[in-house]
């Protein structure tokens, strides 16, 4: 009996489903008339809430790039930091005093002009709330050190020199105090109000009635945006954010035209089907988002270098990248995105080599490392890719005699567990995305022992030489002076093999073919709507 016949007979009633799936793949489906020519239906995820000073993650980047503006902004691919609200800035040679000069004539959504006082308010608010985006600033900036020199000049006086300061400036949105202040309750800086409302100057204005957390968000064009709309004669006038939870729904919605774009995490296995359709295609973009298998360096056998090297040689990097990810990622053997500065040219990572892994295994055993101990690898259950990687790792480890168990877990538990070395799992899997474009975002916060207790530093790696190098690089201003410091640190870290660095991501986004003019940048990942035009 030939294969397809068997399938058809056995599948019985389900053939209907298969047949439909087949026609969908063939692209003979009707187009839903869900969207009109000026409404863009976006499948990007929504942040936990709308306050850019409370939340700072990839979905927030996508939201705030449209609703708010920043002093400087990352644009293009590879990312460049360009003047935005500010037209220029100066910095003293010691790197302590920064002055930003605002453009004139900037208007908020309520029509009021933006002044340096508003920038001061925004930074003070961000520091006072002390939430996610404040992480880069809390230690180096006091609220009173942000001042307005004149209506268009803001001055920042840092406590200590901090090179990533400028790189982190685009993470702070400028908010409108005149809209927030009337809604302040018991000194909360308008926190609960701004969580569901907008008070910005961005290209699009939030429609509060069209917002339900994580479900939908409606925005409409702000015609008076300071950059104007001359560059885009036919902009998107209404932006409807409709995040879809299930991959299958997401793909179907893209294929029937009820979504203009998906988020950036399309599984590689969906690419062919989408590209075969008449109305949509998959856009591939390199970003700075690295995939890491963490090892808890305080727990035996991971406190042994040979044991760690054994594990590092037992992961099928290219099999994972080529077969499971369909080649949509680059092998990145460094503790940093391979497209960022600071990586030593001579560095060589580890390869998949079970023979070498066995040798290291023997060496580790000889040094008394308990290689027979069953170890656990925690994955984020809801993330299929991490689960597959873990299973792949497991079947290879089994071949060299290591008993590894995959444990499903969730992000909030994992980050909580990572707060202490003894609760941190033996191994776990996560990505590090671009919060700001600087080595500090990756190697700096991952391997400087002062960050122990945060999930980024959950390898609990401690090397005084590396600490010194990273701290020096943090307070050195010029990039050309910092680069060798990072290179040296990375060399030492890689020699110690504290974690298993797997790949740097390629983002896959499904787009309707009517979407034109999209501009991609690793920060925001193509979600900035002001550039987009809808065809037809």
């Amino acid at each position, binding site marked *: 009996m030939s294969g397809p016949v068997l399938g058809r007979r056995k599948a019985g009633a389900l053939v209907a489903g298969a047949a439909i799936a087949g026609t969908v793949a063939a692209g003979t489906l*009707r187009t839903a008339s869900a969207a009109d020519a000026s409404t863009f239906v976006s499948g990007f995820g929504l942040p936990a809430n709308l306050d850019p000073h409370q939340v700072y993650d990839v979905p927030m980047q996508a939201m705030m790039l449209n609703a708010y503006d920043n002093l400087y902004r990352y644009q293009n691919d590879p990312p460049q930091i360009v003047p935005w609200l500010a037209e220029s800035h100066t910095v003293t040679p010691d790197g302590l005093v920064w002055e930003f000069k605002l453009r004139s004539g900037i208007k908020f959504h309520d029509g009021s002009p933006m002044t340096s006082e508003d920038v001061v308010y925004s930074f003070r608010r961000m520091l006072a709330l002390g939430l996610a*985006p404040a*992480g880069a600033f809390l230690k180096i900036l006091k609220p009173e050190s942000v001042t307005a020199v004149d209506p268009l000049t803001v001055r920042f006086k840092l406590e200590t020199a901090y090179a990533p300061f400028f790189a982190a400036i685009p993470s702070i949105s400028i908010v409108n105090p005149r809209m927030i202040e009337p809604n302040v309750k018991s000194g909360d800086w308008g926190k609960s109000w701004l969580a569901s409302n907008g008070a910005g100057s961005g290209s699009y204005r939030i429609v509060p009635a069209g917002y339900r957390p994580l479900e939908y968000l409606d925005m409409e064009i702000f015609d008076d945006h300071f950059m104007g709309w001359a560059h885009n004669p036919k902009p998107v006038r209404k932006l409807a954010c409709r995040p879809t939870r299930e991959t299958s729904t997401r793909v179907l919605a893209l294929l029937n035209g009820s979504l203009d774009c998906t988020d950036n995490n399309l599984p590689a296995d969906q690419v062919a089907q989408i590209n075969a359709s008449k109305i949509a295609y998959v856009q591939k973009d390199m970003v700075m988002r690295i995939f890491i298998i963490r090892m808890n360096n305080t727990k035996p056998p991971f406190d042994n270098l040979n044991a760690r090297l054994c594990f590092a040689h037992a992961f099928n990097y290219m099999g994972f990248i080529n077969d499971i990810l369909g080649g949509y990622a680059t092998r990145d053997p460094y503790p940093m995105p391979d497209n960022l500065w600071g990586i030593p040219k001579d560095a060589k990572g580890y390869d998949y080599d079970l023979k070498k892994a066995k040798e290291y295994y023997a060496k580790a055993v000889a040094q008394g490392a308990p290689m027979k101990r069953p170890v656990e690898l925690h994955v984020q259950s809801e993330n299929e890719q991490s689960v597959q990687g873990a299973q792949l790792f497991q079947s290879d480890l089994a071949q060299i005699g290591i008993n590894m168990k995959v444990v499903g877990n969730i992000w909030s538990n994992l980050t909580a567990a990572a707060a202490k070395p003894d609760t941190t799992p033996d191994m776990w899997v996560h990505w590090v995305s671009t919060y700001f474009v600087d080595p500090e975002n990756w190697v700096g916060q991952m391997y400087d022992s002062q960050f122990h207790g945060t999930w980024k530093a959950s390898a609990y790696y401690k090397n005084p030489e590396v600490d010194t190098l990273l701290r020096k690089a943090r307070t050195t201003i010029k990039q050309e002076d910092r680069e060798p410091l990072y290179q040296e640190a990375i060399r030492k870290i890689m020699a110690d093999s504290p974690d298993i660095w797997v790949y740097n991501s390629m983002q896959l986004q499904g787009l309707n073919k009517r979407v034109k003019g999209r501009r991609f940048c690793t920060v925001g990942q193509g979600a900035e709507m002001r550039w987009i035009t809808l065809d037809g």
Partner: protein
Amino acid sequence: MLRFVLRRCILVLPSLFGLLLVTFLLIRVVPSDPAMALAGDAATPEQIERLRQQYGLDRPIWEQFAVYVGKVATLDLGESAFSRRPVAVDIAQRLPATLALTFCALAISVFVGVPLGVIAGLTHNAWPDYLLRVFSVLGIAVAAFWFAIMLQLLFSMELGWLPLRGELSPTMQRPPRVTGFMVVDALIAGRFDVFTDALRHLVLPAVTLSLGGLATIVRFTRAGVLDTLQQDFVFYERAMGYRRRRLVWIYVLRNSVTATVTQIGLLFGGLIAGGVVVEAIFDWPGIGSYTVQAILTGDRQVMLAVTLLVGTVYAVVNILIDLVHGLLDPRLMERA
């Protein structure tokens, strides 16, 4: 009757208190750190410690519980660690969506399930009965998500009759919020385009969600009808020449649905929590997806509130069910 309702309502309170206590303790032992959840991914340990004190998370557990119960009594359900919005506001926004979905699913279950159950009962151990039994069990056993995707493929993709996801088309202007129920608000605003659009969005999720309930109702109605058909009065009524249809659909049915009605009460609580999968696949902005989000992010206030909410809905529905029982069977009302 009023006394009966009041008595039942007062009896519910200790149960809800017990429910709250159990959930509170249960959620307390979950390892995820609410302060860490509040602080966000990029937070430093100092930020987290500050939040811990701010939210009283460093206090003894009984003190936290007492504070919480005091707040609940004034309908303050706290603030979501995730959205940082008042939980009561989030729930008020989302509950109508879930209730609408649940109600429609239940209506489908009842209006399809009861007749099918009666037919199965009337044809006991003949082919229609066998078929209906197998199909009703299929309804319970089929994985909702698989069925949902098949519906999407057929009705949204191939035929293009019904929308794929969501509560309303993105191009539709939302009607002003009055009741929170999209369909009702659309009618109040006189927006018939929104009304039909919202109804069309309801169909697929409601049908998917109705499956399990449909099967349950078929089974219990069948059993009830079988039971009633054994009663002497059915023979008497036939002997007296009752019209066949009226005999079955009025006189037999009313005696047969007691157990079915009880099941509807049990189903309702289940549907609200069980809508999770359906809400996920159809991106339905209700309580189910909210609950999963809360669990995935360790959002304790929301988990507590949702448990309390489902418990309350469960209790209220069961009081209603008792009332319906009383209306169906006068003997029960007298006993109560």
